[in-house]
């Protein structure tokens, strides 16, 4: 029972956060953290667990965002209807580009993903049906509860929380499944894994497709909250980089790594912007960049790994102290 105490406390805190920190801005910030945590956790499936560093993941994010807004803008439906459509598009794209791209090694793979994302962004920018440079907008006023267009960030917070739990749940299930077993082997040494009979290409592709689907949901949720998607905010390379560094900063390949990363980087950027943005002297990003550099330099493995190590050491010391006490007693 004691094992479940801390996790339950933490979960409770997460659940009541927007009720305790309840100004609109704090609630919205919390929702943003969760949103990016979903996207970063989705990326983690292929980037962290499978070790395939995709720097073009925003293309899946965009699928979800555009599908959600498109459902409203073109068909008058609730943006929620776009979510499954977005998943289909994302998984399809992942399947199509995954086959030739996953063959590429390390950095070539990353570059190819960038190229795919940029190519699609450029195509969308010049396609009127998808809003071209203006993008697509969602409902400005909610017609019914399914439009999910609220002033308050509270409903979004809880929707995102549910989705994050689902994403982490799927990730956890995957790591404990056969696929997860294969992925660990592949990440360690793909050649060895193949020689032992692991269907490496297929596994990697499945991880890629799973990650794509989850990322597209994050994109759709983003569009839901902001009510607008344009090529820069839905398909820009900066988003790929952001979710990637959140996973990296927290710890890629760890279940809660992306959440930690998001919980640190999102508020950091907001606060930096709030404090310095208005001055127009560029300090926002000097501070933000400097902190990222420091974290990367001192903890290249991510902060969660550091916290875990510190906790392990503490446990060992306690255990040693207890042992000493037992002996003394």
């Amino acid at each position, binding site marked *: 029972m004691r094992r479940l105490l801390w996790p339950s406390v933490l979960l409770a805190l997460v659940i009541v956060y927007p009720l305790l920190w309840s100004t609109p801005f704090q609630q919205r910030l919390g929702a943003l953290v969760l949103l990016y945590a979903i996207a970063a956790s989705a990326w983690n499936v292929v980037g962290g667990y499978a070790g395939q560093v995709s720097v073009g993941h925003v293309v899946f994010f965009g699928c979800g965002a555009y599908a959600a807004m498109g459902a409203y803008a073109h068909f008058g439906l609730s943006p929620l209807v776009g979510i499954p459509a977005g998943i289909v598009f994302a998984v399809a794209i992942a399947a199509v580009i995954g086959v030739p791209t996953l063959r590429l090694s390390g950095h070539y793979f990353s570059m*190819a993903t960038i190229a795919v994302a940029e190519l699609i962004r450029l195509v969308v920018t010049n396609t009127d049906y998808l809003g071209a440079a203006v993008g697509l907008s969602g409902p400005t006023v909610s017609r019914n509860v399914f439009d999910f267009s609220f002033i308050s960030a509270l409903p979004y917070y809880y929707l995102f929380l549910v989705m994050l739990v689902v994403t982490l749940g799927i990730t956890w299930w995957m790591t404990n499944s056969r696929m997860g077993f294969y992925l660990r082997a592949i990440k360690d040494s793909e050649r060895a894994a193949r020689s032992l009979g692991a269907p490496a290409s297929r596994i990697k592709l499945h991880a890629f497709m799973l990650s794509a689907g989850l990322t597209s949901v994050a994109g759709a949720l983003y569009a839901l909250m902001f009510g607008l998607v344009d090529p820069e905010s839905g398909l820009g390379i900066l988003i790929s980089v952001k979710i990637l*560094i959140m996973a990296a900063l927290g710890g890629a390949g760890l279940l809660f790594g992306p959440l930690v990363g998001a919980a640190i980087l999102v508020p950091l950027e907001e606060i930096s912007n709030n404090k310095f943005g208005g001055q127009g*002297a560029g300090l926002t990003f000097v501070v933000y960049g400097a902190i990222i550099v420091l974290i990367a330099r001192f903890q290249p493995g991510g902060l969660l790994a550091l916290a875990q190590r510190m906790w392990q050491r503490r446990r060992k010391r306690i255990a040693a102290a207890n042992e000493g006490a037992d002996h003394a007693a």
Partner: protein
Amino acid sequence: MSFVLVQVITGGLLLGAVYALFSSGLTLVWGMMNIVNFAHGDFVMLGMYVAFVVFTLFDAGPLVGAPLATVVLATLGVIVYFGLIRHIMKGPMLAQILGTFGLALLLRYSVFWWFGANFLSLPQNIVGGTFAVFGLRIEASRLLAGVVALFVTLGLHLLLTRTSLGSKMLAVAEDSTAAQLMGIRPDTMQAIAWAIAAGATGLAGALIATFFYIVPTVGETLGIVAFVTVSLGGFGSVPGALVAGLLIGVIESLSAYLIGAIYKDMVVYALFLSFLWFRPQGLMGKS
């Protein structure tokens, strides 16, 4: 072939040579040290600002600006190496992306803080004007950059393949433990490689400043071009970067002229992808 087409291709070659020029440093560190440097574009930007400062303070052109930019950036390269790079090198690729991304922001907005957000420019004809060769218009500044690109490519290539320093650097890149056993110090070699790459990038920036605008965010625009050039050419291949750069320059210019400027980048990316899928190691990369 119509005359305009020749002009387009000439322009494309000159453009491509510039791409190769500022990509050569990147391919060096990417191939040798496996470092994904997201701050590369901002190194180019710094080189441009050095040239600008040289002009503002001493009224001197690239003859002074370019060597100075090379030295300044090489020095900065050493600082960055010991301050950040050697630590994130030990980490996974992600740590490098994280670290260099943060570095990019830091460099970009430090320059923003110091110089402001205005667009700056060197005088139009600081390297002579445009001259006509058989009716083709060639900008002296771009031609200079193109010629220097060839020399830099040749120089780096010779350095790596014909000098003992170069073979030491390659040895460290190949297998740093074995190199250590042979008495080579990996840290020193990597710092040198990084410094050379940064210097080359600074040089590129100073030359580009003679015909391009100068603004803190220019690194964003140029950085992605460098990435595509380097991966198309094959990570680590300096001649590959040259060929890739020229190829991209020509394809870009031709597509812009024949199909339309909004499509030119799409064409480049599409061809780039198709090429990679076909030949996963780039034009001249190692298999």
